């Protein structure tokens, strides 16, 4: 009894939060899955049970399979690889200490403070694909500096890879974050370790490869997981950029429009559940692993 009195108050204090989260996260998640098993269409909820019919239907849904899924795969790939590369490079350059490091870091990170809506508005113009007389944005800049051949239709192109253009604003917004992660990782390597390697005869590149690189693996994992899950969740950016453009349609966009525009609640819930599964696949092992390794320490 006394034991309960020792930890009881703590539990009581967090109980409201726990309950709120239990409801708003777990109950809602379950509820959403439940809806995905119904044939709910229209404003009035309908809780029948048609099993996995919605999922099957989605597998044959042209918009979903031809556009959304490939698009999100391409976007995730380009975005994650790009942000990792840029963020890592920036961290590497800043690690050894430069004059004005704080300025550089402020510049690389400030896009994180801006909403995706504002980011989309700015970049929509930058990635405008007007031609000839009405060339503007990035294209205009490229033409002006003589790189006119690099001009592109960006996300309005008819190519499969149109959506990759959106990785530019996304990368602009998030590379700074990746940089912070890698910078913390690089600076977490004790200087003595590098010194030992130098005395052992390793040149700087080899010091990096044999000593520093292996210690960056956890950071890399963190970064990949976080970027991948953000990529799947992203809605605002696409919505504000060019919402009606099928060429950049994603599951998140589709879910929104089919539910709140079209009233196909069940289908929306199905897409949402699939998104959840996609995110869970990366996040669950990650959270579990990092909490466990924290306990081991």
């Amino acid at each position, binding site marked *: 009894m006394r034991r309960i009195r020792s*930890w009881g*108050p*703590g539990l009581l204090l*967090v109980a409201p*939060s726990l309950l709120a*989260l239990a409801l*708003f*996260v777990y109950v*809602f998640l379950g509820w*959403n899955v439940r*809806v995905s098993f119904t044939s709910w269409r229209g404003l009035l909820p309908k809780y029948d049970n048609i099993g996995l019919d919605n999922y099957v239907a989605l597998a044959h849904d042209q918009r979903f399979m031809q556009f959304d899924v490939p698009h999100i795969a391409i976007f995730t790939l380009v975005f994650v690889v790009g942000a990792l590369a*840029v963020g890592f*490079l*920036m961290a590497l*350059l800043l690690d*050894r200490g*430069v004059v004005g*490091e704080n300025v*550089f870091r402020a*510049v690389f*990170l*400030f896009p*994180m*403070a*801006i*909403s*995706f*809506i*504002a980011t989309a508005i*700015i*970049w929509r*113009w*930058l990635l405008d694909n007007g031609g000839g007389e*009405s060339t*503007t*944005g990035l294209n205009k800049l490229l033409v002006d500096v003589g790189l006119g051949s690099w001009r592109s239709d960006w996300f309005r192109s008819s190519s499969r890879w149109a959506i990759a253009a959106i990785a530019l604003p996304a990368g*602009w917004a998030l590379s*700074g974050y990746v940089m*912070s992660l890698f*910078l*913390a990782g690089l600076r*977490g390597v004790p200087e003595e370790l590098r010194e030992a390697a130098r005395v052992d005869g390793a040149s*700087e590149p080899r010091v990096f490869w044999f000593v520093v690189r292996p210690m960056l693996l*956890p950071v890399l994992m*963190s970064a990949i997981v976080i970027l991948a*899950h953000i990529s799947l*969740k992203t*809605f*605002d950016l696409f*919505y*504000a950029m060019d919402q009606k453009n099928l060429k950049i349609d994603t*599951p998140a966009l589709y879910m929104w429009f089919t539910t709140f525009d079209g009233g196909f609640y069940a289908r929306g819930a199905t897409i*949402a*559940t699939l998104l*959840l599964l996609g*995110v869970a696949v990366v*996040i669950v092992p990650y*959270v579990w692993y990092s*909490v466990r390794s*924290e306990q081991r320490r």
Partner: protein
Amino acid sequence: MSASAPAERTDGRIRSRMAPYFTVVRYLVLFGFACFFLMPVYALLVTALKNPAEVSVVRMWEWPASLSLENFRIVWPKLREGFVNSSLLAVPSSIISSALGAANGFVLAKWRFPGADFAFPLILFGMFIPYQAIIIPMFQTMSYIGLKGGLSGLIMVHVIYGLPITTLIFRSYFSGISEELIEAAKVDGAGMLSTFFHVALPIAPPAFAVSMIWQFTSAWNDFLFGVLLTDRNHWPITVALNNIAGSQSVPFNEAMASALLASVPTLLVYFLLGRFFMRGLMAGALKG
């Protein structure tokens, strides 16, 4: 956190002969990146500060012939309400979720109950879920309890979904308190609340700064919950912004000016309190 201060790591090292060349290349590349990051800002400023008559999509990159605040005068009335709404949303929700996060973080770090180590990952997971997977139920629930339309529902939602990150921030912060300090307080007769108030809270201000700044930014920049849960009288700034500048037919200069205006508060917070912003970022990346 070692990433906050620039390291004096090259002090006194013998540099190889190639070092000066590498340094030059380094600065050049960094400068190049900086240009990439600042280019949109340049476009934004240059357009927003142009006289509306002067604006032409084709001449986007040119410096204004004359600086003018006309664009801001045009868009402000359209954004004003959004500003007010977002303030009414972001400030209370950041305060409340930080307060709750502090309490949660303290308990999970220093006053654990059985199952606390199991509860923590469960809470954390809430930070990572795709919101698409809960908006249908949430929409139904909020309509049902009548909190749809106004700002109260939105505030509540932001508080609740902000709990995982604020709890994480405070838990990390409070785990730095030595066990012995807690034990000394217990021996002195303090219960959980007293320990919380007298041992944890006094040292918590930096964590509060981090948490509130992060939550403020998150609430200010949110779009999804805002557009879902509010009626047109209560649109937050992001929704107002999207309405003004979202369509393609809107004058280019107005779009840029409104994007700039809408971002001012969070940018201000970032530049003035960047240190805390940074720590919030780091808290979100669990050390794997």
